[in-house]
Structures are given as C-alpha cells and as structure tokens.
C-alpha cells in the first residue's frame, strides 16, 4: 500500500476566533473525499498537533461539508490565550493548516 502527503490531495485554510483555531481541509477531487473522511479523523489531527494543543481546552472536533468535499477541524486552546495575549510569533495560528498538509494518507 502506498502513502501520499495530504498536500497532494487537499488544500487548507486556517481561521482564528479567540484562542480556537479552525482548519479546513478541502479535497481537490471529489473521488478523494471518502479517503479524507475515513483517515483524517479528529483523533489523527489531534495527534499531529499534540505538542501544541492544551488538553484542558477540550477535544478537537470535526465537521463534514460533503457538498464542497471538505472537512472542518476545530482546535480549542491551540492559540494559547488568543491573538491578543499570545506570545507566539504567529499569534493567529495562520500557518497551522500548512503543517496539517504534511500528514500521510494511505492510498
């Protein structure tokens, strides 16, 4: 079985509200959407960002948007106090989605 990086199958954008980030993952081709649904679980995404997440802030949630072959992941607490208080260089977490695209999916 071969593996490919998510970046080859999907694109992504990250948004922020308070100290919560949301990351969309959108399949380039409708035929790859079932693969995202199967393999790109909330648990998988949480494991990928384990170092950055705050377990006290709540679990990663996944929403499905089948009409646009997309998933939306909501990551509470990942912005560590939010844009206004965070000490991070990227306080908005704008660059997070790009990191998600490094995940490998089985084909």
């Amino acid at each position: 079985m071969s593996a490919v990086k998510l970046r080859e199958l999907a694109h992504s954008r990250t948004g922020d509200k308070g100290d919560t980030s949301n990351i969309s993952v959108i399949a380039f081709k409708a035929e790859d959407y079932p693969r995202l649904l199967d393999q790109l679980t909330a648990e998988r995404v949480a494991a990928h960002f384990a170092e950055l997440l705050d377990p006290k802030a709540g679990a990663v949630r996944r929403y499905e948007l089948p009409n646009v072959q997309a998933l939306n992941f909501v990551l509470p607490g990942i912005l560590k106090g939010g844009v206004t208080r965070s000490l991070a260089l990227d306080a908005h977490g704008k660059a997070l989605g790009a990191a998600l695209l490094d995940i490998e999916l089985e084909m």
Partner: protein
Amino acid sequence: MKTLRIGSGAGYSGDRIEPAVELADKGALDYLVFECLAERTIALAQQARLANPEAGYDPLLSERMRRVLPFVARGRESGQKRLRIISNMGAANPLSAAREVRRIAAELGLHGLKVAALTGDDVLAQLNPEQLLDNGATVGSLGERLVSANAYLGAEGIVEALQADADVVITGRVADPSLFLAPQLFEFGWAQDDWARLGRGTLIGHLLECAGQITGGYFADPGVKDVADLARLGFPLAEVDAQGRAVIGKVPGSGGRIDTATCTEQMIYEVHDPKAYLTPDVTADFSGVSFSVVAPNEVRAEGADGRARPQTLKISVGYLDGWIGEGQISYGGPGALGRAQLARDVVLERLKITGVVLDDVRAELIGLDSLHGAALGLRTSGEPWEVRLRVAGRCADRAEAVRIGNEVETLYTNGPYGGGGATKSVRQVVAVASLLLPRDAVKPRVHLEDAS
C-alpha cells in the same frame, strides 16, 4: 429581476486601496463595503480616543474616502447608477469619522453628500461589575484596566441609515457579514425573520468580508495552487438577486482567481459548526452550500439556509493586560542551530539569574520550531543554514518587559559566536474577552447630518 452589485473594498484595516478604487470605478457597483475591524481594533482605537477626543477611527479612512468619494459623486451627478459606501471604519469614534468624511467631501467640492454615523455599539457605561467574562474574570476585577466594551450590532442600524438616504454609512462595531447583509435587506425588503434569505445574505457577506481572500489572496502555493498576477489582485463583488442567490466575481482584467476552491476556503474560514454560524441577524447554516463555475472567475453560491437569530448579542471587552517584551538575534552558517540553541539556554538562564519578573515566557527558533513546535519542526531533513532566536515574555510591569530584549541583545558580546541582527521591542498588551448581553440592552442609533 432586480439584482444588486455589492463590492468588498477592504478585508482589514491596513488593506490595499487600489483594488477598492478599481471596484468603485469599474465594478458597476450599487454598494462598496469596507470591513476594517479586527478583534481588538476598537480597544486600540479607544486608547487613541482617550488621548485625543477627535481620534479613534481607522487611520486609512481619510485616504480611502478621498479615493472613492469621487465615484459616489459621479453616480449621483451622471444620473446613472448610484454608488453608496458602508464601512465600520468608525471604530471607537463613528461620529468623528463621519465628520471627517464630510470634511473630505467638502474639500473635494462634493456637495450634498449624506453621511450617516451609527452608534450604540459602545456599551462600556452599561456594564455591571459583577458580570462574568468568558475568561472567568468579572468586569469589576479589571478595574482601571478596562478599556472598551462594544456590542456586535447587526444589519438593522445600517438599514435605517440607508432608508434615510445616506450615501455613506460609518459604523463602529458591527458583525462583519451584517455590513453586507444590510443593503440586501434594504433593497429587497426582506422581513427581519425571513431566516432562509437572511442566511443566504449572510453567506454572501461572509464570502466577501475578507476581500482578496476569495479572489486568490491567501491561497497561492506555487506548483500546487497557482494564482495569476497577485500583485494586482482584484477584490470581489457579488451580484445578488431578491432570493439571495449570488454570483461572486471581480473586475475583468484584475489579478487573482475565483473558482470553487477559493470560494470553499473562504466559506469555511473562521467558521466552527457550519450548521450554526451565529451573527446578530441570523443563525446561518452553510452546511448545504455548493459552488459552481458559471464563467471564468465567476462562481455561483447557493444552498445557504438560516434559523432564528440568537437572543443575546456578543460584547467584546478590551482591557490592558501588562506588557510583552521581545528580543531576536540570528545565527547562520555551519553549526548555526547549535549556537542558536545555546543562545536560547543562555537567555532563559539569565532571565532567572537576574530575577526578571515574568508571567509567561516563550523562546523559539525561527526557521525550526516557532510556528509548529519542535516535534513538527524537526521533520525537516538537514540543518537549516540560518536560525533566528526569538524570546518573548509577558510582564505586569513595563520595566521588567524591557529587560527581556536587553538580555537577548547582550548576546552580541556575551553569547555564542556569530550572532547578528539583534532587535528588541516592548508593547502594551490590549487583551480581549467577551460576554453576552440581552438584545434589548443595546440600542443602535443613526446620526444623519447633511453635509454643508
């Protein structure tokens, strides 16, 4: 069937100006909307207003108006299409901002322009000290650190200003999509509880509110997602009908791209549950939305829905929360990573030895772990040629925060070999928390005075 053309002239306070001018000139628009307020912009603007009672509105208001008001005048004088402007550039001082717009109109020789200001979002005086914020603190506990409290208003105040025939409507805090929903409500006469149409109109607002982010901005990834002519990125417009169906487009010849991929990215941007996107006007449901390309760079959006609006309004509370001190220095060449890591250890130890009083500190290596942490940063193969150390800390006192950047700077003569390009800075933290107020506690008010 009557259609309405609404353009988006700014996605944030500092946004480019020429794409808005291009839309005003060539977009055949009925409305041009500038969305310029981020989460804490009003708190910062309120500080400016405390220093100068006439200040506290968007720093680019004057230049934007100077560039687009001539097109508002052209629409009126030619008897052709009328162009009207809606913007939240009033920030902490919509009344003063409206005076500035009238002053610029007079300076340009544009007479008879009607400029309205919308107030009522500022609820600072109404807050109860016992009220609990979402961060667990009470309003009272903030004491003199409390700077601002603004309700997210919906579309209704802007609709009232348009009914009063305003050419330009300047607001403070209004929910971003509501700025775009207002002209649809006004022009199509939708009922305030026509939730399905309000949901569709809110989708249009949400798609347009970040301007270039739907026309190919914030999208390009060379070789994977290419975008033509980003330096001349066009801003979007929507042609909407009375049912709330819309086609998103841009001025022909402008840079960028609009397709189902750019539209989908923007639809999900800053959304949590797509079935429940809360605004002051409606609980919008984007879960059934689909996009279809009708022509190059023209995409139809359909399938949004809505349910009853929330009974409460979100209030954004700005408060002073100490100071952040920061220092940075770069290392390059063979062994750069090891020297940067040593520099990081030295600074953290120095902050302890010298007793700097910190609430929190973060030390990261730009080029390795600053964006995504060490676990992901170390996936890279091979050592980076250059690395930049960044140390940032939050302190209650400014004097303590200053010492952080100073410690980084001392690496020049006291730290590892070959550090260069040290910088240091200190800034006051204006933090934002939120609370909810009942809808009837907030009273939008339109101020319309004819220009002289």
